[in-house]
């Protein structure tokens, strides 16, 4: 039993080690490499959040960037210095004017960012719990649409299409690593929990799980809210890294980029999500340099080439490995190839 637990622990340990390697690589490289590394660590926090819902429920969400947006705006409200807030939010409606006076530390902002996102998760959970398949995917997209429209139209509070500026830079390689490790541990703990196991059963066969007494809706809602929290925290980390952002970043192109990470790595696997986040972050940087002409003797390629190549790669992987590179397996656990040779001709049926 003890050895079994140790074997199970190999997955989170390996994933944390990968995050550690990303941080060390960021440390060793120049400022550009460091920037890529921090963004990769923030992406790890986001995709572990997304994967907490999608890998266990088997339902792909296109709406989690909405949670990230809420986390980012929350961090902005909590950490922009009070004097600057006075000018930025001069038209804040009276009942919300207390927001101008709020001030918190970076860590508190990240946690509260996650909590605010989790509230949106709670509000939307009843709908998500009831839907399956295509309907569910569309509903998650609707969550993103509604959030995006509120954020870009509620000008007096969110500054609408004007950028949010003046957020103190607080996310570093080390704090990014710390939150990535915490997110990996939370996601792994949920996956191993009784709720996570029952949700994975419903992913495999909805009606068989109902016939086993599983309350599918309740577990879907639990995973949804927890994943909202993690993605909200990722948003706060993001805001505290880039210091200024525009609402347009929290929409379809960012959603696509995270989907690519999770799908390439394997959307039914936590390891797949983490590997996908690291791999795609690296790849995006390489492709950007390629597009800028760094590998072609200085002549820049047309804008969009990098995205085009990423999309092409996604297509190839979807065709060759429909479940991504990891399938539904996890790092450090026995591979499926070794497991699939149980074909010895034994007497079948139950032997009492």
């Amino acid at each position, binding site marked *: 039993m003890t050895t079994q637990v140790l074997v199970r622990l190999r997955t989170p340990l390996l994933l944390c080690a990968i995050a550690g390697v990303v941080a060390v690589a960021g440390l060793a490289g120049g400022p550009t490499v460091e920037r890529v590394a921090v963004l990769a660590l923030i992406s790890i926090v986001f995709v572990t959040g997304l994967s907490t819902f999608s890998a266990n429920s088997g339902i792909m969400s296109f709406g989690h960037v909405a949670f990230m947006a809420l986390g980012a705006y929350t961090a902005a409200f909590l950490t922009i210095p009070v004097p600057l807030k006075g000018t930025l939010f001069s038209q804040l409606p009276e009942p919300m004017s207390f927001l101008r006076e709020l001030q918190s530390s970076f860590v508190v902002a990240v946690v509260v960012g996650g909590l605010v996102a989790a509230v949106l998760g709670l509000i939307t959970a009843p709908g998500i719990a009831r839907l399956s398949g295509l309907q569910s995917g569309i509903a998650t997209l609707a969550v993103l649409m509604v959030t995006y429209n509120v954020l870009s139209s509620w000008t007096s509070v969110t500054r609408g299409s004007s950028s949010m500026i003046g957020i103190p830079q607080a996310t570093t390689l080390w704090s990014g690593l710390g939150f990535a490790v915490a997110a990996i541990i939370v996601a792994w703990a949920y996956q191993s929990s009784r709720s996570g196991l029952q949700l994975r059963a419903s992913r495999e066969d909805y009606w068989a799980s109902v016939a086993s007494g599983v309350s599918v809706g309740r577990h879907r809602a639990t995973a949804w809210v927890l994943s909202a929290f993690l993605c909200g925290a990722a948003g706060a980390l993001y805001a505290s890294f880039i210091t200024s952002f525009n609402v347009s970043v929290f929409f379809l192109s960012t959603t696509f980029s995270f989907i690519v990470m999770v799908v390439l790595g394997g959307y039914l696997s936590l390891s797949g999500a983490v590997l996908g986040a690291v791999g795609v972050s690296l790849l995006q940087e390489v492709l950007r340099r390629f597009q800028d002409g760094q590998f072609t003797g200085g002549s820049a390629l047309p804008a969009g080439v990098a995205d085009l190549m990423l999309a092409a790669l996604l297509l190839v992987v979807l065709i060759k490995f429909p479940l991504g590179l990891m399938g539904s397996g996890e790092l450090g656990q026995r591979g499926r190839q070794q497991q699939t040779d149980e074909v010895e001709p*034994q007497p*079948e*049926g139950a032997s009492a």
Partner: protein
Amino acid sequence: MTANFDSPSVLSMHDAGVHFDGVKAVDGVSLSVSRGEVLGLIGPNGSGKTTTLNLLSGMLRPTVGAVMLDDSDLSRLSMRKRVHAGVVRTYQSGRVFERLTVFENVEVAALGAGLRRGAARAAARSTLTQLGLDDVADLPADSLTAGRIRTTAIARALAAQPRFLLLDEPAAGQNETEAVQLIESIRGFAREHGIGVLLVEHDMPVVMGTCDRLHVLDSGRTVIEGEPQRVRKDPQVIEIYFGKRA
């Protein structure tokens, strides 16, 4: 009388039926299963066996009549709530959780029945031992042979702590000897744990020696119910059932 879910002794259906757009898939069927006995539900294809099982398990709600557990009416309860009341079903094709291990398959059902983690694991271990699945406990369910996938499905149903077990052709695709062996072991298990079993089966020879009573359906209606020897000699059964094979 008050409902007592702790020790229900009879699962029954009273003049129950279900109509799909005017088509009567099951029409006025009454039957009952007591704990510890095996009732075989047989009939030709399309006679309403699986629909009857769906009515009892909660996959379908009866449009007329009632499903009762002792004196409590289950007719409007969802399948999940019926599982918690002790009425557990299996599916014809097994429908195991393919990418979960055999152990996890069984553990999920024990958790679904409301056991805590430690108790669920203990229940899963003992069920796997009883059904001889120990050696494959840590393998993904879809890597097993067809026969052991079916056994896993039965282990999963047993781990849900049933008082009544509804089995939809558990031995389909196996030869007669294997089928009889499997159903005999289910019967032993049922007697030992006081579980009432409803066994849907279309293969007459398989149920003859293994069931305490048989209930024969044809076109959604009851033809006859009784002991296997008596049912086999019934002229109506011979005509609609054996007659088709001759």
